[in-house]
């Protein structure tokens, strides 16, 4: 029994980790910019492909640098995100939210084809960087996956420290809470928005880079995760990073159990859970604004 439970648990937490990395970015972007960022899928896929390019470019003697490829990729993605936000997005903040979504979706489509153009339509991959696995309670589990879980936890922890303990975190929270007043206090709100978008995109890029050795990459690879990311943030309540953590765990574990026992409808179960939660609490588990 234990040997069934442990991989189930580990897979669930692993999946939750990836979902959290994706949805955390979505949440902080929504919190500050009030945009549901469809371009997040682009951040993920670029994270994967940049990481791939870096690894492929490194000569074999430097294979120990493979570890930092996702980080560099994440930084690059962050910078691109910044450019996108400052160059394009800021011009449509005053528009109806649906138009903003469409613009972010448009970028996602464009990036997908850019990837296709540069790296081809076939899937790419590097194979596992780390072959090692570890034995836990009689079950063999890849160490790399455990590392990803650790990274997700580290990001969660860092975000927590950022928002609770640092000045910039306070500024971001203030902007998310009330942009006008924060601006009136002399804070450069534009800068806050840019930084937020940079961080959010970077985290998604990190996820993409981390997942490269596990699932590889192909045009459109981020889309399924994005959809699930939306489910997570809807379930969590838009804007809540804590909620994203909880919801990611819920969905990750549901997915893991579902795939094992109810493979046909495991995705449906997730949506059903979402429907039930939203019926009882329309603003999501940790949702801020009450919505009738």
């Amino acid at each position, binding site marked *: 029994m234990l040997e069934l439970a442990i991989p189930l648990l580990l897979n669930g937490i692993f999946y939750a980790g990836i979902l959290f990395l994706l949805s955390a970015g979505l949440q902080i972007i929504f919190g500050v910019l009030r945009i*549901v960022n469809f371009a997040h899928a682009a951040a993920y896929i670029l994270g994967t492909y940049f990481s791939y390019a870096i690894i492929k470019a490194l000569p074999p003697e430097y294979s120990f640098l493979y570890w930092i490829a996702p980080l560099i990729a994440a930084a690059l993605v962050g910078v691109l995100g910044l450019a996108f936000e400052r160059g*394009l997005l800021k*011009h*449509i903040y005053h*528009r109806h*939210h*649906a*138009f903003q*979504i*469409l*613009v972010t*979706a*448009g*970028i*996602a*489509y*464009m*990036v*997908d*084809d*850019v990837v*296709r*153009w540069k790296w081809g339509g076939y899937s790419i991959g590097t194979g596992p960087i780390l072959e090692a696995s570890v034995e836990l309670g009689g079950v063999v589990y890849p160490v790399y996956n455990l590392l990803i879980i650790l990274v997700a936890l580290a990001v969660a922890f860092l975000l927590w420290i950022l928002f609770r303990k640092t000045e910039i975190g306070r500024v971001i929270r203030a902007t998310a809470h009330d942009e006008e007043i924060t601006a009136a206090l002399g804070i450069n709100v534009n800068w806050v928005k840019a930084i937020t978008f940079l961080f959010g995109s970077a985290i998604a890029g990190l996820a993409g880079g981390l997942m490269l050795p596990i699932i590889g990459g192909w045009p459109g690879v981020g889309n399924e995760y994005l*959809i699930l990311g*939306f*489910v997570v*943030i*809807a379930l969590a309540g*838009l804007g809540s990073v804590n909620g994203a953590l909880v919801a990611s765990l819920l969905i990750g574990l549901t997915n893991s159990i579902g795939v094992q026992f109810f*493979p*046909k*409808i495991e*995705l*449906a179960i997730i*949506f*059903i859970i*979402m*429907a039930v939660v*939203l*019926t009882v609490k*329309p*603003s999501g588990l940790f949702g801020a604004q009450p*919505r*009738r």
Partner: protein
Amino acid sequence: MLQRFYRTAFIIVLLILITGPVYFPSFVVYLLSYGLIMAIAALALNLLLGYTGLMSFGHGMFIGAGAYTVALMMKYTGVQSFELLIPLSIVVSAMLAALAGLFCTRQIDIYFSMITLAFGELLFALCSKFYSATGGTDGIRVKIPTLFGYSFPGGGEYYYFILVVFVVCALAIWVICHSPFGKAIQAVRDNEVRVGYLGLVVMKYRLIAFVISGAFTGIAGVLMVSLTGHAVPESFQVFTSITIVFMVLLGGHTIFLGPAVGAIVFVFLQAWLKPLFFWQFFLGGAIILLVMFLPGGVLGGVQLWAAKALQRLRS
């Protein structure tokens, strides 16, 4: 003066649509068929978007509902006539819309959009997974249904049927948009708080609008699957839904026929661009350019241009 311009333009377009199959090559007729079908879906979506103020990212689920109603009925019951399948799909889509609507219309704004998206994806997931019943990702092959015993020999004849259905649907949606109910949903769009102070329950109107919109989109699904011959789960997905939204915005969501124009323009644009290998790039770019610079869509732009041209003529 402007009115006469619009009326003549409208009549010319209608004449072209009616006489088209005579001189257009068959692939153009196919594109027009496709365009008119999506025009129905676009008009239906705009009932919800332009008139009620709700943006759905899940309307693909109704196309899928209509398509799979036909496909499953044909596969399992041998029913294959439009006169049965269209009413049936209306019922199925309306019921689906009612069920989804109960969850979706409790939310507003962005939350509404997210839930509709989730519902669409949910149906996609269900459809893909239940391989045995629905053929999974392969979909189900469908042949074109008959109409009161008449089998459509070719694309040209089917095109006329689509045109007729389009006109009927467009008229019906027009009447609804201009009826008391239509004014009520516009009031909800403009000031939902005030609507409460009229003694009306806002959610009720949103739900009804959602159901009507879904039902008409289901009709589009029936026609669509009969045209392409293949019911696929991708219909349920967000890409389909966003495409419909884009068509509405392309044509202009503030003018009644805008979405219809947008749908036809989009279909031709897509046909022109798709051979270019990276057409998604251009689609994305077009979406961005449209939102940034042409918020009124094609018809909105035409309106502005016509008004300016008129001014210049006068001076």
